[in-house]
């Protein structure tokens, strides 16, 4: 037979479980959010941060430096469009659209990264 005290105890534990679950789920949901934030960095300083999900019109962003570069942003994706650097690795990387995607220009020390992590891998070899 359950006594009053037992019921109180079960009640408290139950409430504790519900509260902690809510927090855990909340935390997970933030991580799995659909908002894709792209950041443009020059020498590891963020110069621009864009929510790709809220882009409506294609947009050109010019980066001046040792080599000038142009970044193109569209809804849900971003890329280096033009670059004056010799190797064009950044332009050849193409569109970035998933979390964790990254394009880098080594000669100019610039990069575009979509924040967050790919769900399947932590890192990819080069």
């Amino acid at each position, binding site marked *: 037979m359950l*006594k*009053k*005290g*037992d019921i*109180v*105890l079960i009640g*408290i534990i139950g409430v504790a479980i519900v509260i902690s679950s809510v927090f855990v789920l909340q*935390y997970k949901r933030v991580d799995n959010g659909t908002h894709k934030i792209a950041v443009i*960095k020059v*020498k*590891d300083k963020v110069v621009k941060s864009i929510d790709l999900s809220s882009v409506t019109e294609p947009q050109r962003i010019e980066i001046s430096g040792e080599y000038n570069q142009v970044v193109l942003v569209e809804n849900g994706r971003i890329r280096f469009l033009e670059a004056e650097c*010799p*190797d064009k690795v950044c332009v050849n*990387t*193409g569109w970035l659209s998933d979390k*964790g*995607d*990254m*394009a*880098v220009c*080594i000669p100019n*020390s610039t*990069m575009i*990264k979509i924040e967050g992590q*790919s769900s*399947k*891998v*932590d*890192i*990819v*070899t*080069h």
Partner: protein
Amino acid sequence: MEKTVFIKRTNGETDMGKNFLTLIVVLATVCLSACSVSENTPYKNFEAEPYENTDFAMGTVINQRIYADNAEEISRKVMERIRQIEDDMTINKPGGEINRLNDSAGTDFVKVSEDTLYVLEKAKKFSEISNGAFDVTIGPLVKEWGISTDKPAVPSMERLQNLMSLVNYRDITIDREESKAKLEKKGQLIDLGGIAKGFAADEAIEIYREHNIRSAFINIGGNIALLGGKPDGSPWKVGIRNPRGPEGSYIGIISAKDKAIVSSGDYQRYFIKDGTKYHHIIDPKTGYPADSGLIGTTIIADLSVDADALSTATFVLGLEKGMELIEKIEGVEAVFITKDKKVYATEGLAGSFKFEDDSKGYEYVKKR
């Protein structure tokens, strides 16, 4: 009646009191155990957000992910260490020990640091076991091709033949006692581009360890070194680059802890002249970019310096000889990708390599 009720009530009260005591004990135990768990488990920052840092050095991108409270400070220490290694070992800017060693080729010994001695010894060792497929005296050929420069060009065969006579790892003399080294012939050039980044990645892991970090990784231009596993104790998932796909695309996933993973490929640096692609991994035996039938090699080893040298060596050797070499070395595994888009993995990877090719362009060949 009243008495009975009273007794009942008393009983009820004592039970309540007991239960209340139990509740306090339970809560206290849970609380204490929770505290002690967070104090003692190796995965202290289980829920913590990782610290990520991207920086540029050694002519490439360096990415660190660290789980620790003072991660930013540690990442700075790592970058300082890497820049120091770069200054000692680079040939792409003036100064440093390797430049001095090259300048004194054919004349004198040059005093070098413990770092440089170690890397030169490693380089010679891998040259020997790969029968010269990996050779850090490749410098004169790399310079002639100029693949990493603004003006790459295809040299004449005659010119390459002449320069090839300068490529020979046996001409590096190392005097450990006196901490000095020498190149035998004038014109010889050591280029540590195929091994220095691997060494730097090992040194980064060493710094993480010194700071009691249990979960971190560093990626120096594709030289990936893992410390521990993820904070929850599971292994890191490392994608193996699809050599014909964009950066970040992969053909399979390796699950690993405390390992170094390095890829080499014809896609990393190259130039195209008259419709022919010339990549940056020069075969010391032909003077031309290696044409062994492989387009990508990935080595999994305990040390990044080993994986770095072996990924280049096997890329030059090709599938059969490359496999033979890897199978000879204890604790080293490999994934090879051939020109006809077949993927081969060593037997030791059976449990940790998962073929996963979203591009649907590759075929996984389990048995050779």
